[in-house]
């Protein structure tokens, strides 16, 4: 629709105008053919849809003003161009208060018109969801990964569900994120579900996600950190898996179980010995040993923002690593080969500043190269593959 108007407008325009039409066409393409899975233009939930509705209205008005103003401009350029042989000088018009006042009134009316949905939409997206079905998840942003703690989902022994980078949520349920940062400012953004919200150290911010439909297991909804947070900001991604209620419950049950600690002297035990000396300096795992004893290995760290305790681990929890499809904050496909490459030299995959880590003072800027032999790497990868 808008496109036809734009075409007609420019059919008669001179040099400059003919080129200028590139711009509205691009804008219209953006409006009509949102593309890609991380787009704000094809929402998959009611909140993002509200935002998109406001955007559509504003885009329409903007297109109207654009066509009007460009039309006037281009028409004036064409109509009042200097013509060869014309010796007369133009009338020396100095201005017109009527037009000035008209211009002001015109702009004020248009802006007043869009300020209403602005404020209404704002209150909508900032509303705190209420009801028993609201799912609460605590989010901690880290350079350069995301830590999720499902404070509503607890095991019999009181452990909460902890995972990283891949968020699993039920369809149609308001998911209320309570967020803070362990280091610098990040921003949590999954465009098809909602706008972004900064994740600020020392402060708590919130964001509500509601998803319409379950996602196919191999096509989670993508998102990523939207506030520049240093070296690997580009590689700080988020994947959201949406399940139906039963699927979500099944996922929670699995995640709350411990994984298995290899029995002494078994093939996997060598990998475990390496893991338990080097990797548990940063990563937590909850394992059940042969005696049936459940132990959480690795450091347990919290930070407090606005009186809320947030997990602040040095590295992602690996208990159910192979239940995830990706690693490196949603950046790399998770398989044995990639993982071996990562353990061998993490910075060959993802830029980090691990040499500037200072665990004693709680500073982690990436996973260090641990100097393992290729045999050791293979043993560790074999072990990790059993943690699903």
């Amino acid at each position, binding site marked *: 629709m808008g496109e036809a108007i734009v075409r007609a407008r420019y059919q008669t325009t001179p040099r400059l105008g003919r*080129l200028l039409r*590139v*711009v509205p066409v*691009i*804008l219209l393409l*953006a409006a009509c053919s949102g*593309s*890609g*899975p991380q*787009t*704000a*233009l094809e929402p998959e939930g009611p909140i*993002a849809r509200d*935002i998109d509705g*406001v*955007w559509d209205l*504003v885009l329409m008005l*903007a297109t109207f*003003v*654009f066509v009007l103003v*460009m039309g006037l*401009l281009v028409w*004036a*350029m064409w109509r*009042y161009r*200097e013509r060869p042989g*014309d010796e*007369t*000088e*133009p*009338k*020396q*018009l*100095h201005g017109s208060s009527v037009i*000035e006042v008209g211009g*002001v009134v015109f*702009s004020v009316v248009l802006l007043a018109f869009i300020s209403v949905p*602005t*404020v209404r939409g*704002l*209150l909508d997206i900032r509303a705190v969801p209420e009801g028993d079905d609201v799912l609460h998840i605590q989010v901690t942003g880290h350079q350069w990964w995301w830590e999720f703690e499902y404070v509503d989902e607890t095991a019999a022994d009181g452990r909460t569900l902890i995972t990283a980078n891949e968020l699993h949520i039920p369809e149609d349920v308001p998911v209320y994120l309570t967020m803070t940062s362990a*280091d*610098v*400012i990040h*921003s949590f*953004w999954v465009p098809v579900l909602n*706008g*972004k919200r900064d994740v600020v*150290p*020392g*402060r708590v*911010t919130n964001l509500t996600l509601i998803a319409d439909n379950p996602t196919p297991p191999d096509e989670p909804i*993508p998102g*990523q*950190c939207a506030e*520049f*947070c*240093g070296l690997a*900001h*580009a590689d700080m991604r988020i994947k959201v898996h949406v399940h139906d209620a039963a699927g979500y419950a099944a996922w929670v049950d699995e995640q709350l179980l411990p994984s298995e600690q290899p029995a002494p002297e078994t093939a996997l035990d060598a990998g475990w010995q390496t893991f338990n000396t080097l990797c548990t300096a940063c990563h937590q795992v909850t394992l059940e040993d042969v005696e049936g004893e459940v132990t959480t290995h690795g450091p347990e760290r919290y930070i407090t923002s606005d009186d809320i305790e947030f997990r602040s681990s040095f590295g992602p929890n690996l208990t159910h690593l192979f239940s995830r499809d990706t690693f490196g904050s949603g950046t790399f496909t998770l398989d044995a080969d990639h993982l071996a490459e990562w353990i061998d030299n993490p910075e060959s995959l993802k830029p980090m500043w691990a040499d500037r880590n200072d665990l004693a003072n709680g500073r982690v800027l990436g996973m260090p190269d641990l100097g393992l032999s290729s045999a050791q790497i293979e043993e560790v990868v074999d072990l990790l593959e059993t943690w699903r």
Partner: protein
Amino acid sequence: MTAQVQTIRSPGDRGVWAWITTVDHKRIGLLYAVSAAAFFFIGGLEALLVRTQLLGPNLEVLSAEAYNQLFTMHGLTMVFLVVMPIAAAFTNYFLPILIGARDVAFPRLNAFSYWLFIFSGLLIYSSFFLGGAPDGAWVGYAPLSTQLTEVVRMDFWTIGLSTLGISSIAASANFIATAFTMRAPGMTMLRMPVFAWMSLVVAFLLIFSLPSVAIGLFQLFLDRNFGALFYAADAGGDPLLWQHLFWIFGHPEVYVLVLPAMGIVSEVLPTFARKPLFGYPFVVFSGAAIGFIGFGVWSHHMFTSGMGPIAEAGFGVATMIIAVPTGVKIFNWIGTIWGGKIKFNTPMLFSLAFVAMFVIGGLSGVTHAVVPSDTQQHDTYYVVAHFHYVLFGGAVFGYVSGVYYWFPKWTGRKLNETLGKIHFWLALIGFNLTFGPMHVLGLNGMPRRTYRYPEGLGWANWNAVATIGAYTILVAFLVFAWNIVRTHYLNKGERVGNDPWDGRTLEWTIPSPPPVHNFDETPIVHSLDDFWHQKYAENEEGRAVRMPAVTGAADDQGDIGRADHGTPEGIHMPSPSYYPALASLGIAITGGGLVYLPWGFAAIGVGVVVMLWGLFGWSLEPVTKEH
């Protein structure tokens, strides 16, 4: 009567030394212009490297580390070392002439501003050779910018911006004093050309906004070097404080970048439409209004930071209000060409493109004020598109228009029109190819400041288009550079007299290039666009008619309406001085020392001595040396 006016200015005005010691506002203007052009080239190369890396998904042209330095330096360079100085160049050169003055109010302070600017630029750029350039984005958000204290990159940024700020404050004070006290007789405030007005508004914006960021930078510096905890959340500091302090400066700053360009456009459109500016008082007051309201909208850069819905609604609506005076300007520009007789010379083409591109940037700006939409757009390529439409398609096109317009006044030669038109069309096409697609990319989820993006998100095609556009812009500006070299250095340009465009304002009454003292006799001003009214009257129909009495005045210094205010025998201009350059060198050395604390204390010692030497020499030297 204008026989031989002798200017007393010692020593000779040739050679490098003459440029170092100059206190002539025109020379200082040219120094600003040439420096800004050099930085434009460097900042452009940085952008091209960035664009090359983004040509396709997961390319490895640049490492993340290099990429982050390059986009930070690109933004910092374009804002502080290109657009601000090019505006300063025009203001320096033309503010005094447009108001009929012989120089700025404080010529040596003017030299000081320039030298401090260039030394600060060099200080910041030296970081590339000293272990790496600033890499925390030009906005330097805490606590990212205070995080790695063992790496001095961000110290170059805090110190460099601080010394640049001193330079801007000095320049602004100077321009305000000039506009208020140096106007020729009859040049009332409401007869000042719009460009002079906008320079004045910008000077006020800087004076009032820079202190805020100066405090913030000082706190960052203390956090980084002395373990202060202003921005350390775990010790009770507040990272958002920095964002407020930065944007209270940063938002007025965007008007600092664009208002002078709007001033230029308001001079160019009337000249080439052969009509007065439509609604002069409205254009002036809307400029001033933009300046005022510009101080009340800073938090629209923080709609996602968690301020709370009341503040967000307030700043959203305030931001919409600022669109009103901006709209007024657009309508007045269209009104100016409406009914005119438009000559499409290169300066006019760039000014018209300014208006068109600014409309697009202004509209996308209004969409940012719509807070719900902004939570999607913020920190994406949509924003990158927006601010390039206002800063590149807007401001830079305006300044380029100014270069084509005033080049004959600077050098006595016109830039070549054919090359100018090639430059124009390549720039316009390249610009829209580069930044148009970024709207789409941003809406489709591509965040800014990302050194790579994966396949499968649908971003590859538009990114490729944007990169092709960026190279087109490069070609366009190479044509521009060639045009300047050819016209000025190879002497191929058409020679012109005083008034090549049949202009309206005082600069066209004096020779091209102007003599050191600008005006042999101080002009007496009777109206807005005084020179035009010396040349043209209006007939009963309101059309302009050339006044027979002064036919030929276009190439001659029309001598109606002049009073003998100069001293015919000799006009005393302030003497050259190297002390301003010395004082600013001292400040820059001190800055270098501050970057390298604690062992930089030695350099600080040297720097302070040099600075004091410069300042004392400056204050004790006689104003005009006898010879």
